[in-house]
């Protein structure tokens, strides 16, 4: 089937020429598309560094936004706000995500229930973030009648769950059965064997998953618009609207003021550095083959 009549013993020069030409054309096209894809990436980074670095100064990290019309100010409250939101999200998302991963891999392996849970996690992963924000608005903001950091944290936390669940599951599946049997053979209770032996063996991979989920939600803006709402002032209370870096970048980017554009670029640079560092760290850890010793 895979061999079509085209590759028979054609010896006519024209056909051969055409085939060689098609081969070269395909190579050129593949190389060209790779270059074309790399261009925007490099352009984004160059502009971020160029425009962002020039607007970063001490005030950026220590001051809160100035009122409209005044030059200067910073994003200190947004950086702290993002930290609070991500902390809340991690408190919710990491334990639930890891526990569901453990259930799928250790308790329900191969059962219909765990397959369904895995599928649901994949589906949840694809839910648009703006819809997630709207659902949390209906669930938490409407009954409490005010925007809050708590609602934002919950929205981000829910978005972390599927990624963590799936990576935890995959990493646990890579732990060989012998390790579990050895632990059980020593009379270790199952729950301890799962936590202290299996999960521990897979921990570098699990941490990778958590970092990826963290990096993903760190830049989420849409779910925060109707939950955390943003705040021009200092606030670390989880019952108050809170500022967040991506939200502030959005507000500044669509504003008509040049100075705010400058701050938006600075904020974007900080955000990207945060995310790239965590992704690179993850790749470094994962690339060293931490699980090789176990398999």
């Amino acid at each position, binding site marked *: 089937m895979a061999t079509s009549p085209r590759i028979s013993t054609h010896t006519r020069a024209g056909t051969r020429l055409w085939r060689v030409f098609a081969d070269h054309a395909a190579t050129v096209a593949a190389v060209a598309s790779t270059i074309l894809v790399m261009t*925007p990436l490099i352009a984004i980074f160059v502009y971020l560094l160029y425009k962002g670095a020039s607007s970063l100064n001490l005030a950026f990290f220590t001051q809160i936004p100035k009122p409209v019309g005044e030059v200067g100010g910073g994003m200190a409250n947004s950086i702290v706000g993002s930290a609070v939101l991500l902390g809340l999200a991690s408190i919710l998302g990491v334990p639930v995500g890891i526990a569901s991963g453990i259930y799928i891999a250790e308790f*329900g392996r191969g059962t219909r229930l765990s397959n369904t849970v895995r599928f649901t996690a994949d589906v949840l992963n694809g839910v648009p973030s703006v819809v997630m924000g709207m659902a949390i608005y209906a669930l938490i903001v409407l009954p409490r009648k005010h925007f809050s950091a708590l609602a934002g944290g919950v929205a981000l936390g829910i978005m972390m769950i599927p990624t963590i669940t799936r990576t935890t599951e995959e990493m646990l599946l890579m732990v060989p059965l012998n390790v579990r049997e050895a632990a059980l053979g020593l009379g270790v209770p199952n729950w301890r064997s799962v936590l202290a032996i299996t999960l521990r063996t897979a921990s570098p991979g699990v941490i990778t998953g958590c970092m990826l989920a963290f990096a993903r939600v760190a830049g989420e803006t849409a779910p925060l618009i109707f939950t955390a709402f943003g705040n021009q002032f200092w606030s670390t209370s989880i019952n108050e609207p809170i500022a967040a870096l991506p939200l502030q970048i959005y507000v500044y980017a669509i504003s008509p003021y040049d100075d705010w554009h400058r701050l938006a670029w600075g904020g974007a640079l900080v955000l990207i550095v945060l995310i790239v560092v965590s992704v690179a760290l993850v790749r470094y850890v994962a690339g060293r083959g931490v699980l090789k010793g176990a398999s």
Partner: protein
Amino acid sequence: MQITPKTGRPQPPAADPSSPSAAPKPSPVRAFLQSRGNSAIADRTFGGLMLLCALSIFAIVVLILFELISRSKLTIDKFGLGFFFGRAWDPVSGDFGALPFIYGTIVSSIVALIIAVPLAVGVAVFLTEMCPKVLRGPLAFLTELLAAIPSVVYGLWAVFILVPLLRERVNPLLIKTLRWTGLFEPPNYGIGMLAAGVILSIMILPIISSLTREVMSAVPHAQREAVLALGATRWEMIRMGVLRNARIGIVGAIILGLGRALGETMAVTMVIGNSPIISHSLLAPGYSMASVIANEFNEASDDLYRSALIEIGLALFIVTIIVNALARMLVWAVTRGAPVRGS
């Protein structure tokens, strides 16, 4: 509860040398084990806890669906299915129709796919089949980095770099050469459907290309060797040996990219123009389902307005769930060791 087989303490026969006929005194091993107490309760509790967390994922999806349905009841009752075919969007007089947003979402996603799919497949072909080994790692890392950039940063870049570029350079060229198609009509604002499609294509490229790479690597090597042994050139090998066998997975990857494009919010909101009109020109401003929610939800003052926006969200939720489920199934069918067709 399927957790029973593993609960309780395992008692390998080797640990119990005292056979039933032996003295009642337990062996040292057994005595040690018994001194640690029974773990059955702890095990069951732990298993139950894990199950609870797993079930919470269901609960979340069901809860989201329930909230969205119950909060959009007002417009569902008032407009029915006509909501999705109405062209009016008038919050003041309470007349809502979602057609402009559906149109904007679909058109911008299609534009994104048209741009992204050939490029993504090209990148995947280059990385799996042609690239020197030295370059493979860094290039794959770079494409993954594209996936890690937050939407709002893409939006920022698009507003200040891409839109001016389109307005000054690309759009005049398109108007000059392709105006006869009716797709590129002035006025040329820079922002609009085309800008949204281009930024979307950059955003969905990494996911399509990394999944395509995955399914292409799943094609067995024997397949490539067989085609090469028949005298095929490298491109013919890729086309017949690899792409043909991976095509279902590639379609899955494309659909997954579509799912992303449909729900993408921030970057689109920043460049699509945000006006609920249906225009056949790609250079005209539009509106998408996600961006109307992002823009107007906080301003929705009365219940009907809010309900209309939530119904748009509900539609988006259901569509993305269907699209994602379909895509996952297609990708699984290939990467999960499905029999290779044609061999």
